[in-house]
């Protein structure tokens, strides 16, 4: 089996290396990929959508069908994760958890699913993998998280003029939540943003994207033609496309942020969303 695979791989390698001889050289301005539709994107996108960042204009305007379904794929991945491991959470989890109240050192024993009492100070779970909290780690990450989120919003809002956009902003925003979960614990994250809210945000992002496209149908235009905003808001065509790109990117950012955070929560806690890393 192993030798068979190696033979197959060697053959593939030989074919690929032979095929590479016919490729255009690296950085050749006349390579076929850079000639036809790509020229159109570069030359027309500013007049069509008033967006200097060609990647954003191509992503959310010329290729907005593609981006819409990529967003749906991310959303479906989060859904799949949920149904694969979240639904089966009852099987192998201990029913009793022990929590230590950090200021007093009191240890509580709770059945799973019972809420912790509303006391000042933090509870931390004690199990066989319990490690003492690091004050430095918590303080530093608590200082970093607001700036991460602010930066994510900047990346989203400034995606027309600088490298950025919905996917990047969503990933940065999701990373700030994951940082919160890693540096504190998963319970802190779910206290800040409930699981239900996360799921609603993911669905809201996809709905916003599809809704922006569907409103064009209502205005008698083609699906995903942002030109309907000229009628609704009384702006010129390129401005309408620019606004459409921003709204659509907002939808992408919501879905990506919520989906990646949900996937992290599910995978790191084996689907229980009770206690993670």
């Amino acid at each position, binding site marked *: 089996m192993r030798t068979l695979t190696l033979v197959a791989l060697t053959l593939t390698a030989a074919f690929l*290396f032979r095929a590479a001889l016919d490729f255009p050289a690296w950085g050749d301005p006349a390579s076929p990929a850079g000639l036809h539709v790509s020229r159109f994107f*570069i030359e027309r996108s500013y007049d069509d959508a008033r967006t*200097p*960042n060609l990647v954003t204009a*191509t992503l959310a305007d010329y290729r907005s069908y593609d981006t819409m379904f990529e967003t749906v794929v991310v959303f479906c991945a989060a859904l799949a*994760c949920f149904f694969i491991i979240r639904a089966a959470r009852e099987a192998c989890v201990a029913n009793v958890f022990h929590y230590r109240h950090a200021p007093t050192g009191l240890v509580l024993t709770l059945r799973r699913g019972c809420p912790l009492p509303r006391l000042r100070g933090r509870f931390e779970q004690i199990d066989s993998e319990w490690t003492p909290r690091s004050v430095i780690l918590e303080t530093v990450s608590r200082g970093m998280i607001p700036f991460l989120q602010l930066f994510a919003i900047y990346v989203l809002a400034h995606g027309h003029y600088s490298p950025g956009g919905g996917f990047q902003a969503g990933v940065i925003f999701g990373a700030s939540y994951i940082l919160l979960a890693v540096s504190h614990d998963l319970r802190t994250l779910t206290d800040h943003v409930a699981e239900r809210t996360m799921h609603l945000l993911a669905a809201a992002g996809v709905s916003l994207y599809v809704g922006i496209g569907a409103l064009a149908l209502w205005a008698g235009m083609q699906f995903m033609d942002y030109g309907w905003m000229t009628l609704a808001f009384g702006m010129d065509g390129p401005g309408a496309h620019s606004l459409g790109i921003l709204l659509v990117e907002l939808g992408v950012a919501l879905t990506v942020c919520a989906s990646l955070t949900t996937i992290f929560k599910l*995978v790191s806690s084996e689907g229980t969303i009770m206690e993670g890393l």
Partner: protein
Amino acid sequence: MDFAPLLGKANFWAYFFIMLTGLYGMAVKRNLVKKIIGLGIFQTAIMLFYVSIGSKEGATIPILTAADAAGRGGIDAAAYINPLPHVLMLTAIVVSVATLGVALALTLRLWRRYGTLEEDEILARLRGDPGGEACTPRS
């Protein structure tokens, strides 16, 4: 012998090497997590390949300069690298993270059921002893 046309494609050869490394990991390794790592390496090679297709000698990043954005007409397409591969890979990177999550979720489920991530051990258990959940308490 003239090596210049060969060296001009050295980048593609590097990506082929990375891609085949990933393919080897997916095909030969028995451990499911190692297969997932191989998948990640494979995807990285594809992303590098696409981004490399978009490059143009002497061109700048695909964001119009202030002069080009203000000017009427006359944008030189050769002055900006091809935005299309960047668009495709931008979405592919995020989707690859999401699919990685699904793969890890499936792996967790398998671990919970069979107590192992070795492919041949799982197959052996499927053939011989299809018993229930591995971690249900034995009476």
